[in-house]
């Protein structure tokens, strides 16, 4: 039986698709059979970030409407044989998704995969609701910024009340906080919310902190999940995140400002 993880946030543009790509690739590289599904019907991005946009023939909506089988729609990743991608439709909109259809697809995938990562669209409407309804774990991606924190709080409320586990009184969804685009320098200057500030409002288990990094843009431009770029700070941070998710004790890095030596300050170019 697969573990279903939803990557959600409420607010848009905080790093859900980047995170979905990174975490699913990270899990697959550790040997787990993983599938990542794009729930953003009509505005699909996951295929771009994963670098498989030219290989999309059938999509999630085709499978739900029985116009194609799951095997026809799933795209095998060229870099890792354990990773598969189920892209969203670009031509339709979120009304094409039905609860029964999503349930059927997830049940079918559960038989063959260890982890199913659901990349939620922004907002709290149908697409986001369907992405989180069947989840076992939720990674709530938040920027250290007031509107993102408030929207994440709203999303946590929905996870606790409108998911299948909540409606059927089962063990609640395990919620994790992922703080992205974190800049220790700005936190020190008092311009940005610190980890403690965010935790005071959200009170969640901290899965990790991803620093603001130029590597993220380069990764999406090249179609390679940033976790592969293990020289970059963001890549390493995501690798820590995957380790922590799998239960390893990994100390939090990237929270405190890095002390740069003279050469670092002369030649280093971190944002």
């Amino acid at each position: 039986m697969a573990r279903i993880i939803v990557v959600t946030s409420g607010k848009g543009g905080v790093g859900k698709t980047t995170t979905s790509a990174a975490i699913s690739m990270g899990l697959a590289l550790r040997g787990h059979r993983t599938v990542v599904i794009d729930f953003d019907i009509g505005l699909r991005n996951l295929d771009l970030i994963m670098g498989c946009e030219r290989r999309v023939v059938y999509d999630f909506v085709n499978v739900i409407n029985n116009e194609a089988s799951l095997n026809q729609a799933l795209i095998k990743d060229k870099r890792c044989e354990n990773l598969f991608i189920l892209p969203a439709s670009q031509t339709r909109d979120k009304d094409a998704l039905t609860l029964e259809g999503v349930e059927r697809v997830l049940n079918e995938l559960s038989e063959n995969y260890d982890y199913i990562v659901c990349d939620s669209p922004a907002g709290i409407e149908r697409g986001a609701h369907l992405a989180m309804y069947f989840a076992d774990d939720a990674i709530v991606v938040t920027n250290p910024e007031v509107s993102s924190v408030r929207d994440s709080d709203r999303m946590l409320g929905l996870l606790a009340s409108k998911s299948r586990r909540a409606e059927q009184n089962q063990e609640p969804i395990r919620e994790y906080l992922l703080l992205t685009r974190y800049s220790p320098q700005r936190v020190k200057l008092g311009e940005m919310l610190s980890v403690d500030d965010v935790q005071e409002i959200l009170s969640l288990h901290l899965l990790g902190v991803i620093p603001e990094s130029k590597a993220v843009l380069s990764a999406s431009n090249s179609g390679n999940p940033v976790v592969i770029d293990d020289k970059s700070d963001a890549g390493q941070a995501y690798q820590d995140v995957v380790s922590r998710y799998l239960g390893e004790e990994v100390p939090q890095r990237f929270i405190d400002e890095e002390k740069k030596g003279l050469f670092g300050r002369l030649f280093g170019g971190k944002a």
Partner: protein
Amino acid sequence: MSSNPSQNTSPAAVELKSGSITLPILKVHTVDMADIDQQLQQKLGKAPEFFRNAPIIIDLGELTEEQKQALDFASLLKTVQGLALAPVGMRGGTPEQQKLAQADKIAVLADVRTESALDNAGEKKPAPKRAIPPPRPITATTKVIDQPVRSGQRIYANGGDLIVLAQVSPGAEIMADGNIHVYGPLKGRALAGVQGNLEARIYCSDLQAQLIAIGGHYRTNEGEDDAFKGKLVQVFLQDNALVVESL
């Protein structure tokens, strides 16, 4: 819970049971539609969320016979519905007005003898029992919440007290017919005594609420409550004003 087992061979699809529900009654005192509209908006503006889509009874019993004839009932209905209220019944109108109500699927309820109606005692019949609100239940249940109340969530302790053992996020609403206790930071909105209990109190270990209300009397926090941040306080009504006191 089931009806006569000896008579039914198949499981009951529906049941008709009698129950009592307390509803707000809108008593109309004038035929001036502009006045009615303006005052209604004022009253609703004080607690918009509470009144949004709230069921109400329209009571024309306070008007004289002349006023009733002069009242434009269709216009009154439009005004009320336009303010997002849901009229579910009316009483005290003329036969024409009753027909109008029924056309709009609004129930016509029997007249009630109110205090001012005693003046017209000759015309009205004694009120049937169902128009009077039921007595409060003897046992009040307390609702206990031990998970954080997140933004956008609404918790309502119907008929009793509410105890929250975790934080209440900004944007969350907690309501109770009785008292409210929050053993954690209260950053959202807390409304105690929502059915009109002016004796209700709010107890809090860290008051940072956006809005506090007791029995409909409310206050938003524009900085004056920051002095109580982190302290154990109680909030109660004194002479129709909200008082915050540290414990």
